[in-house]
């Protein structure tokens, strides 16, 4: 047998939705994490509750790269429906575990060198007495088999199972029993015949496992959000649900009363309406949704832009247009959000690439919304929002809230007059007052119709244009406040790459891989683009914009906002719904550069 491959390979588990696979997959993933191995996991699931194919992929790598390989090295085939297709995808040297009671392979299907591990899952499962649990625990048997063959630490497995089913002793013992069935069978009947090995490491010391939706929810709580209105939509629902449970934990006063309000609204229009009402009344308010929700919210978004009301919207992007692929990922809403609503509108977008950054950017989003008195979008996606990521621990910020320009009763005493849209400081950001302010100068009548500096109705073309120009200037001024882009690679190179959000992980790995090719890379973290982005584009002869949509949406914004460089841009696009990988980006890049 050739030299062992240690901690650098991929596992794919094929199951059917609703068979308890999520729980068994998590046990495996978390155990590897606790063994200090660099690990990444992604769940590729259907828009369905029970019965359709689901794949769970785990990649282990010394550096813990958070994107998948295109090839699988170990596959676990539990779903007869996809088994033959899944088998056809594996490379010659792969290892195949399969439910031998349900799946039979023909000789022609097998590539030479493939190592087969037959698991009589149905037969073994008969030993699980409880019929209801039996189906759900079949998948734990495969975990046991892998554990025996690849020496996954049993103590760790047990601790993960205990933590996962806290307070449910029966569930813990049932899972341990199933695990043992797998271990016992594999130890007695299977002989390891491949080169893949796990070795305990130390790369996860300061790390946690967290999905982006949980991180956004916590970021919003730490950012002082008090009103949440939302409507269920995949992949954002878990954000609001997680937030509700954390809020109940951290924001209940001594009388058991809530220091927050969370409302599941009747639709996305009402969600954003409540957020805008709350923002106007002075609290930090947000909604979480996905592309179809943004489409519905468009009219209200225009109102918040034009009448200047703070609001935070998290868009956990999924595949559009239309209902599209609801459980698959895309960066397809960039243009939709950048210019949401009719008329001339421009919005502020933030692009988190990891849970840690989601946590930070949620806090930043509330500051920005208050400072700029406008809608701020946090552009997450399904991959980030719903997958479990291995990331640095969440970082506590000592920074105080920036509530922006609000005049209270004392300040109103000191001003000669109050006009809601008077550009007093000549920075295009005006002062606002909040309803409930007890002052004769304080009140104003907000309207989505044409208004003058005192928010009075007007149809004057001059006044209208003056106001719109100020709004444009205000949008430009956002550049002073948004997170700056991050430069890496070889700074003197004339070949640049631009990526944002979850695409970052694939691009960053490519940079590690192609060290001999001079490349530099700018990770854009916000829209509008700061001067650094323009400088980067100017300094390059060619710029590859890597993103997960068909039309090169960020590239289009770059072409419009940094004019004169159109010929430099090339798109690298992956938009079929599965997360982009370094393998894909490297291949496309090398094709373009002629180095392949």
């Amino acid at each position, binding site marked *: 047998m050739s030299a062992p491959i240690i901690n650098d390979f991929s596992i794919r588990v094929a199951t059917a939705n609703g068979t308890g696979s999520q729980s068994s997959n998590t046990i495996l993933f978390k155990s590897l*994490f*606790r063994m200090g191995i660099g690990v990444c996991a992604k769940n590729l699931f259907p828009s369905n509750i029970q019965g359709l194919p689901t794949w769970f992929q785990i990649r282990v790598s010394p550096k813990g790269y958070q994107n998948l390989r295109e090839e699988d090295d170990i596959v676990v085939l539990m779903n007869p429906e996809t088994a033959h297709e899944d088998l056809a995808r594996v490379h010659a040297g792969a290892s195949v575990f399969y439910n031998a009671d349900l799946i039979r392979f023909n000789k022609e299907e097998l590539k030479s060198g493939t190592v087969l591990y037959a698991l009589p899952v149905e037969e073994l499962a008969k030993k699980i007495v409880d019929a209801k649990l039996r189906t759900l625990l079949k998948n734990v048997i495969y975990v046991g088999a892998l554990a025996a063959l690849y020496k996954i630490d049993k103590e760790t497995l047990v601790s993960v199972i205990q933590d996962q089913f806290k307070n449910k002793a029966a569930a813990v013992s049932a899972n341990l029993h199933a695990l043992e069935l797998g271990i016992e069978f594999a130890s007695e009947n299977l002989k390891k015949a491949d080169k893949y090995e796990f070795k305990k490491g130390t790369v996860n010391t300061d*790390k*946690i496992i*967290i999905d982006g939706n949980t991180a956004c929810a*916590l970021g919003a*709580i*730490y950012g*002082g959000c*008090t*009103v949440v*209105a939302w409507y269920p939509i995949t992949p954002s629902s878990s954000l609001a649900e997680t937030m509700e449970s954390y809020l109940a934990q*951290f*924001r209940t006063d001594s*009388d058991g*009363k*809530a*220091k*927050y*309000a*969370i*409302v599941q609204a*009747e639709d996305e*229009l*009402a969600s*954003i*309406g*409540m*957020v*805008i*009402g*709350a*923002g*106007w*009344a*002075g*609290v930090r308010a947000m909604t979480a949704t996905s592309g179809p929700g943004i489409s519905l919210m468009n*009219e*209200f978004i225009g*109102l918040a832009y034009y009448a200047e009301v703070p609001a935070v919207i998290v868009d956990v992007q999924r595949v559009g247009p239309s209902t599209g692929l609801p459980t698959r990922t895309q960066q397809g809403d960039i243009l939709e959000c950048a210019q949401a609503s009719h008329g001339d509108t421009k919005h502020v977008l933030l692009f988190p690439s990891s849970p840690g950054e989601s946590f930070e950017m949620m806090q930043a989003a509330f500051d920005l919304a208050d400072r700029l008195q406008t809608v701020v979008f946090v552009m997450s996606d399904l991959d980030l929002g719903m997958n479990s990521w291995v990331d640095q*621990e*969440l970082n*506590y910020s000592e920074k*105080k*809230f920036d509530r922006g320009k609000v005049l209270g009763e004392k300040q109103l005493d000191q001003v000669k007059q109050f006009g809601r849209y008077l550009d007093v400081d000549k920075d295009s950001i005006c002062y606002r007052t*909040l*309803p*409930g*302010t*007890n*002052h*004769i100068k*304080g*009140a*104003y*009548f*907000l*309207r*989505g119709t044409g208004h003058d500096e005192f928010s*009075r109705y007007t149809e004057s073309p001059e006044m209208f244009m003056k106001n719109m120009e100020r709004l444009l200037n205000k949008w430009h001024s956002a550049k002073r406040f948004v997170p700056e882009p991050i430069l890496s690679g070889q700074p003197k190179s004339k070949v640049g790459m631009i990526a944002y959000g979850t695409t970052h992980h694939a691009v960053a790995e490519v940079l590690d891989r192609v060290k001999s090719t001079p490349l530099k890379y700018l990770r854009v973290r916000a829209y509008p683009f700061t001067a650094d982005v323009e400088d980067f584009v100017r300094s390059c002869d060619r710029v590859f914009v890597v993103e997960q949509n068909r039309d090169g949406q960020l590239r289009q914004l770059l072409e419009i906002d940094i004019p004169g460089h159109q010929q430099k841009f090339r798109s690298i696009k992956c938009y079929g719904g599965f997360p982009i990988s370094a393998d894909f980006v490297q291949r496309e890049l090398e094709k373009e550069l002629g180095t392949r």
Partner: protein
Amino acid sequence: MESNNRIGLSKNDYVGKPSTLCKGCGHDSITNAITQAYFELGVPPYEVAKFSGIGCSSKTPAYFIDRAHGFNGVHGRMPSVATGAKLANRRLTIIGVSGDGDTASIGLGHFCHSARRNVDMTYIIENNGTYGLTKGQFSATSDTGSKNKRGVPNIWPVIDCCVLAIELGASFVARSFSGDRKQVISLLKAAYSHKGFALLDIISPCVTFNNHDGSTKSYTFCKEHDVPLQELGYVPAAENIHVEMKEGEVRDIELHDGSHLTLKKLDREYDPSSKMGAFHAIEEARKSHTLLTGLLYINPLQKDLDSILNLTDTPLISLGENELVPGAEVLKKINQSLK
């Protein structure tokens, strides 16, 4: 000249900008009634927040209580904005003005759900059965057979917003006629004192597009067919109830803030605490082409949104940063739980 009210303000402190609606518009009577009611109640203007959507009705919040903040949003979505503001600051007195297009068509979903949540607000429908601002199309509250200005009858069934609101959980539902100033003012005061969703469906004739013969929302029709359920009296909390009527003639309802609404029986027995009674009366009135006005339904004890959500007594807007941020230690524990 009227004297100042209990908080020392004059009626002038409750007026707004001059109306730009058509001369004689029913909406202007409602605007005046709001001004009068809030002045007489002595509501501090800064505690009021006014909301509206789009349409003739939705312009009116600019015409009363200029000293209060106002929010004129998008078509049909007033209830959601008002709900958000109320969540943010539970001390605000919320008054929303909508129209029949705004409420019964484009915003029907939001209307239903704000009633269902029993948001503590006064929700006024200035109901003229027509789209005035777009020049006279039928609305969903136009009666079947009612004619438009060109004499064409409405072929569609009518939506009764009061029936809907009662069914969906609104805790105060009344119908009135903009021409009955006294009734409108009494209902506005009672709605203010009520804690929960108070719907006032006020028939308000459109003098330009829906005031002709053959319309069931014209001044003449409404005056001729108005049948008040009760004679209403509002007694503020500070004053003793003193009713000079025979026992059995008056029903007294204590409202949330300690004020009282007295219902003097007219020619019929009516129990406004019965949902079924209200449905029956509204259906009978519809059949007999009468405009039944007065308090149709009330449940002063029903939980409002703030209570359902168990909100802290301090308005959310008044919570400081230290009360909102769970802190570094908690984050450490969260990190620990995610390993």
